[in-house]
């Protein structure tokens, strides 16, 4: 079943009005794609191609120039319609330094006016799965980079949205930690029925994690390929060495025109 439909979505920024976090102006042109329920969709493209802008459009932080966003058959024309509907995880580390891990991860429920106590209870049960057991009363500044990202992911999961928008969640981590978190995400993924849009600039990561991959062109971003990743599950660290994986990668690289 189609959960999210994005139709002819375009956004250009005039004269550096909004600069991306890497300092360049991102724009997207005529994006059209559907996301099925439970699907893990990875989005890859060169930096500055507007991948982050797409997520910001969906999250209701930016208004498109044209096109529409339809969630569960319901169009969401204004930013306030979309705010509070997607589990958006920004690229930069956004744990609140003045809250403990536990108080950070219940933020979504708290802002929505839900019960903090039951949110804490839910969070405590998920802490072990997210490798945060025993760290619930820590300040974020005392955690490693990988743990901080897992805490931010837990916060996004707990907020209770159907669709998660993850903007390069492992982008700032060192290569080994990133590998570990990819394996971890593959292993916990089966326990959640979440639909995920996952931005990355790492082609191995995009193919390893995703059920489907969108390839973006350089700025302004257009979708140049929509590839099904029919690698069998469970996948692990050896998957990236399989011939099927390498064939997919060759194909994807051709579309990326690197």
């Amino acid at each position, binding site marked *: 079943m189609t959960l999210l439909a994005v139709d002819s979505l375009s956004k250009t920024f005039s004269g550096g009005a909004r600069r991306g976090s890497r300092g360049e102006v991102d724009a997207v042109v005529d994006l059209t794609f559907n996301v099925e329920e439970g699907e893990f969709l990875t989005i890859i493209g060169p930096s500055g191609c507007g991948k982050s802008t797409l997520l910001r459009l969906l*999250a209701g932080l930016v208004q498109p120039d044209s096109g529409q966003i339809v969630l569960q058959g319901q169009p969401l024309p204004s930013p306030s319609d979309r705010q*509070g509907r997607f589990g958006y995880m*920004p690229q930069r580390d956004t744990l*609140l330094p003045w809250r403990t891990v536990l108080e950070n991860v219940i933020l979504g429920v708290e*802002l929505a006016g839900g019960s903090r106590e039951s949110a804490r209870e839910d969070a405590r049960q998920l802490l072990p799965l997210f490798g945060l057991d025993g760290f619930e*009363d820590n300040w974020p500044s*005392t955690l490693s980079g990988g743990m901080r990202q897992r805490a931010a992911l837990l916060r996004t999961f707990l907020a209770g949205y159907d669709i998660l928008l993850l903007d390069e969640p492992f982008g700032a981590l060192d290569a080994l930690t990133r590998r570990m978190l990819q394996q971890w995400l593959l292993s916990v993924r089966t326990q959640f029925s979440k639909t995920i849009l996952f931005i990355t600039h790492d082609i191995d990561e995009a193919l390893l994690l995703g059920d489907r991959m969108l390839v973006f062109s350089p700025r302004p971003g257009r979708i140049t390929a929509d590839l099904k990743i029919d690698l069998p599950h469970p996948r692990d660290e050896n998957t990236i060495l399989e011939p099927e994986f390498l064939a997919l990668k060759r194909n994807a690289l051709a579309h990326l025109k690197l």
Partner: protein
Amino acid sequence: MRAAPLFLPAAVLLTLAILWELVVWGLEVPKWIVPSPSAIWQAFWEMRALLGVHVAQTMLEVAIGIGIAVTAGVSVAAAINFSPLLQRAIYPLLVISQTVPILALAPLLIIWFGFGIAPKVIVVTLFCFFPIAVNTSDGLTSTEPELIDLFRSMGATWLQIWRKVRLPAALPFFFSGLKIAATYSVTGAIVGEWVGAKQGLGIYMLRSSAAFKTAQVFSAIVITSLLSIMLFLAVFALERGMMPWHFDER
């Protein structure tokens, strides 16, 4: 604050005091020109009851002045950050206001507000307002845009964004300002008293100086310093209490 970093400056201070005592004693410097540390201590001990009254008066002015400065400073900082128009209109004026010589204003305040507590409180407020307002304003501006994006994407109201993001994010900046203000505040009160007062350390210094009781002036100076240090430490303790994440290695 550990004991070790304070040990060295304390030792230097003690050495200087001993040297001072020896020089005054050896050169037989008259007490009304430069009193020795022991003479300053004696002046303090003899006048301690009266000094208590003056200290209480000065600290009352300081407390009210800081209270007003915090309220006004935080309000102005919030207003500035609430509206870009206000920011452009007021922020430069804030900086310019700081170039006004408060020392020259003090006698005028006496003319306008009389010899009561009001002009002293105003001087303290003028000294303290600027560091609090500018630091808090910078703190509110410095909130990471990604945090605000996160809150907006979660459908947070602007009130939630202020309470749960912008104000906590500005706290360290506010306390930097408050620490500067706390160290200025006692001096501010003394400036206010200097131009005319019935009670307070400022008028005590002025009277002692006029009577060539130099040791009394020095003892009041030492008390002023100690009071400023105490206020600074009190703010530091408050900061630790309110921002445990900044200090705890938990």
